[in-house]
């Protein structure tokens, strides 16, 4: 393995860790923040028929979880290509 390739892999991994940290921060804020720690505060706000904190606890967080994974998929597929570590087309 050449030095150049190793360098490339390291850059790829750093960027990956960076994505993970940002996405997991959102994950944490939505579920543990909005739905648990600040739920009573957010409950003072009413949107539609829901108290906001209650909505995050029972529905909103789940929608955002799904979104997070698809954002991650998109980001990583682009990153794989850019750093030339993506997989060949399957047989």
């Amino acid at each position, binding site marked *: 393995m050449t030095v150049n390739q190793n360098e490339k*892999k390291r850059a*790829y*991994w750093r960027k*990956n860790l960076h994505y*993970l940290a940002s*996405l*997991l921060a959102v*994950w944490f804020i939505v*579920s*543990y923040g909005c*739905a*648990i*720690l600040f*739920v009573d505060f957010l*409950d003072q706000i009413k949107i*539609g*028929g*829901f*108290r906001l904190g*209650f*909505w995050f*606890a*029972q*529905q909103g*967080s*789940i*929608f955002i*979880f*799904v979104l*997070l*994974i*698809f954002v*991650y*998929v998109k980001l*990583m*597929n682009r990153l*794989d290509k850019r750093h030339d*570590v*993506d*997989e*060949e087309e*399957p047989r």
Partner: protein
Amino acid sequence: MTVQAWTFVMVGLSFALYIGVAVWSRASSTGEFYVAGSSVRPVVNGMATAADWMSAASFISMAGLISFMGRDGSVYLMGWTGGYVLLALLLAPYLRKFGKFTVPDFVGDRYYSRAARVVAVICAIFVSFTYVAGQMRGVGIVFSRFLNVEITSGVLIGMGIVFFYAVLGGMKGITYTQVAQYCVLIFAYLVPAIFISLLMTGNIIPQLGFGGTLADGSGQLLLDRLNGLSRDLGFHLYTDGSKATIDVFCITAALMVGTAGLPHVIVRFYTVPRVAAARSSAGWALFFIALLYTTAPAVAAFARTNLLNTVSEKSYLGIPDWFKNWEETGLLAWADKNSDGKVQYVAGSAIDGNKPIFGDGRGASGERIVTNANPDTTNELYVDRDIMVLANPEIAKLPNWIVGLVAAGGLAAALSTAAGLLLVISTSIAHDLLKREIRPRISEKEELIAARIAAGVAVCIAGYFGINPPGFVGQVVAFAFGLAAASFFPAIVMGIFSKRMNKFGAISGMIVGITFTAGYIIFFKFIRPDMNSPDHWWFGISPEGIGILGMILNFMVSITVSALTPPPPTEIQELVEDIRVPRGAGEARELSV
């Protein structure tokens, strides 16, 4: 047609479908048996994973639990979905690149240690058996209530079906049957939810009807009505929590991390052809799970409102049939404490102990006599939480075919999960123990036979526990998640994200994590259940949430021990480098050593 006739039709049709799919997708190699030849498309795998993950507990019990817990029910809603984010981001792509059949394979190879592998195998088998017993029980409940067969025969029929397609088809058969089962179960969950949402709020989408106004002309919000009813009867407000914040936090975290560490979920990501497919397949899995999980809180609120409206202060003589039918199963009981012939349903436990005990003969209104009514409260009604989803269509007076459909959906949920778990058990025994530990020279054909025999034996043991459930099934579920959170999750995450982590660190971390978590749960659940209250819990964390402390301990011990001992060999560090990049992932395979 009657409910029973419709149930026979729906269940019969769905079973015929599963058997057809199973015959069409038989397995012929160990690769196909364990991981479906790593050829499953991401959307298909996502759907199968969703069916695998959503058990009888998700389908039958969860909405019922939420409808009694109110906002605190979010621990299950978030706990059982948020774990997929961890799974997609931290585990699935790397384990897929690693490309073996099982979780113990990864733990054993990454930590170059047979001891670590054996610990992982034992945990995997324990966790899976805990789960599978509960599924068989769910099958029994559905059969006994809707088809009037004994729980025993119900379990035997369920065993027969699972045996047929798990043993024949392995992972390949299971994956494609699970796709069919997902379709049945989601249809069966959404149809009644949509009908009830339309009836109660005029909104066709239950997720929105949940926050909508009632269709009875009062212009009141559903949740406001529910809060009002709850307040009048002395229950806590539906949209308020009654658990301590730290406990909600820890239970949610333990369930999330536990989900990400469960072997039967992780193994699903070995079945897709590529790393990129493993990532998107986790996304699809959560999408399909979210369809049910965002409907569940709506169902819970509808069911609760309906229940309070239908039974409170109503005369037993005029009560609807579903009430009396469930009373016959013993999952619902009424003790006319003040002898007014009406059902008083208020806060407080109606009975002494956990379950009602019925005496002979009938009471003044024709009800079954309850011998252990609790004289200290005025509440007269006992409702088992497990019946809410099954009874909901009847409570809302939906047509009979929908009731039959729900029964078929409950069976689909229980059978699909049971099959996935049985596969983990059979893989653990035939592959991790027999092939990797006891007889490495065994041929592929022999291994396949061993895997089928192991699956067959596992079905029988699971069936036994389904017929004779140990009283502690519910309690051991806390165990399954706690142990997965405190053992597998840290070991796998550090195996991927730290090149420096060595076997001494990982093994000592797993042992400390498991011992601590198991010790805490055993103490409060089995040795001193009388002390199982917030006053005695450490930091106010219940046994259900303690796995998260176990996980933190595991991380701390692993990092400390690993820093004090020699780094792992170079080839292991290269292995870690290798799984971090997607290129070069082939079909999951045997090591060529």
